[in-house]
């Protein structure tokens, strides 16, 4: 009983951070995502015991998915159910991609050893999202670089890029979705 009580209190706080974040509270949203990445890492590490070097990539992919789909959270629903459904979906998607790849090129024993060795620094992602970001077209990449990496406002980003404010917002939104699609095609 005490265990579930503690869990509920934790979930309650976690959910509160997300709801405040969705309402526009940036520090709360940052705290939510930070807690979420630790949560996702534990969740995925348990389920990817045989593929430790995939964990951090999948943590990042799931973080991006949660952010892109944050409008699908139903405030009446347990937050962990929503997060786990997204993480599980991305996990299965990744395993399918791997299975398809391995059907195409026979996995070598060397490759397997390399995967095992990567266990110690599992906190480093193998896939560099920065490189994928560079592949996006300018109308998506520049708004993301200015707004999300340099922290400029919508208005400043619009001035620097010569885009309209609406186009900047659409660029960020579509760009993050395109980034998720690039990961899938990776």
């Amino acid at each position, binding site marked *: 009983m005490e265990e579930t009580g503690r869990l509920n209190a934790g979930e309650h706080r976690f959910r509160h951070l997300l709801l405040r*974040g*969705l*309402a*526009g509270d*940036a520090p709360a*949203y*940052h705290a939510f*995502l*930070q807690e979420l*990445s630790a949560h996702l890492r534990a969740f995925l590490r348990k389920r990817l015991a045989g593929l430790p070097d995939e964990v*951090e990539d999948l*943590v*990042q992919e799931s*973080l*991006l*998915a949660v*952010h*892109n*789909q*944050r*409008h*699908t*959270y*139903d405030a009446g*629903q*347990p937050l962990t*159910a*929503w*997060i*786990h*459904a*997204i993480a*599980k*979906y991305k996990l299965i*998607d990744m395993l399918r991609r791997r299975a398809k790849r391995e059907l195409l090129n026979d996995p070598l024993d060397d490759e397997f050893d390399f995967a095992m060795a990567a266990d110690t620094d599992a*906190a*480093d*992602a193998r896939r*560099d*999202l*920065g490189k994928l*970001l560079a592949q996006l077209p300018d109308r998506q990449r520049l708004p*993301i670089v200015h*707004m*999300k*990496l340099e*922290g*400029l*406002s*919508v208005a400043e980003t619009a001035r620097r890029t010569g885009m309209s404010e609406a186009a900047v*917002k659409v660029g*960020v939104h579509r760009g*993050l979705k395109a980034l*998720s699609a690039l990961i*899938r095609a990776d």
Partner: protein
Amino acid sequence: MRTDDLVTMLATGAGTAQPNPAPRRYAIAVGWGALGAALLMATLLGPRPDLAAALLRPMLWVKLAFVAGLFTASLLAVLRLSRPGLPLVGLAPALGAPVLAIWLLALITLARADAAQRAVLFFGDTWNSCPFLVALLSVPAFIAVIWAMRGMAPTRLRLAGAAAGLFSATIGALLYSVHCPEQDAPFIAFWYLLGMLIPTAIGALLGPRLLRW
């Protein structure tokens, strides 16, 4: 990029999230789907000549109630399957209830009819075109509903595709019943249902490909 940097990047300038867009997206999809089906029906088939008289008799309303029941239940399924982690309890009974009701009515109709009449009640005049025309009129709604669902985050793609297919099929069937002259419960219970199961099956088949995110 390190995960902490990604977290900072995602949080920076995130603004407010749009409130649940599902009702609006599906309302748009129903509108375009119904408009497309109405145009197809009007140009290819035309309304039944005795439509005004049929509206005064109960059987057209039974047919509409059956399709409307499935419309409501499949809409519920579409909404639940559009968002990650929502429970699916209650969907099977909701979907089964209209089907069981029309089957029961069909059985009663067949049991009370003369043996010679039963084949007529079951096959009507249009059994060989009805399922395909229902499926055909569902195409605009199918495209619109899949578009709407692609803006959401279904995680069970086969089920979500099937629900989208059935939902669009009920829109096609509603518009088809403006043309269709068949009145008898046995006909509706089998051939309409079969027609609606065609887009459902196509949705289940294509769901994993069309709805992936």
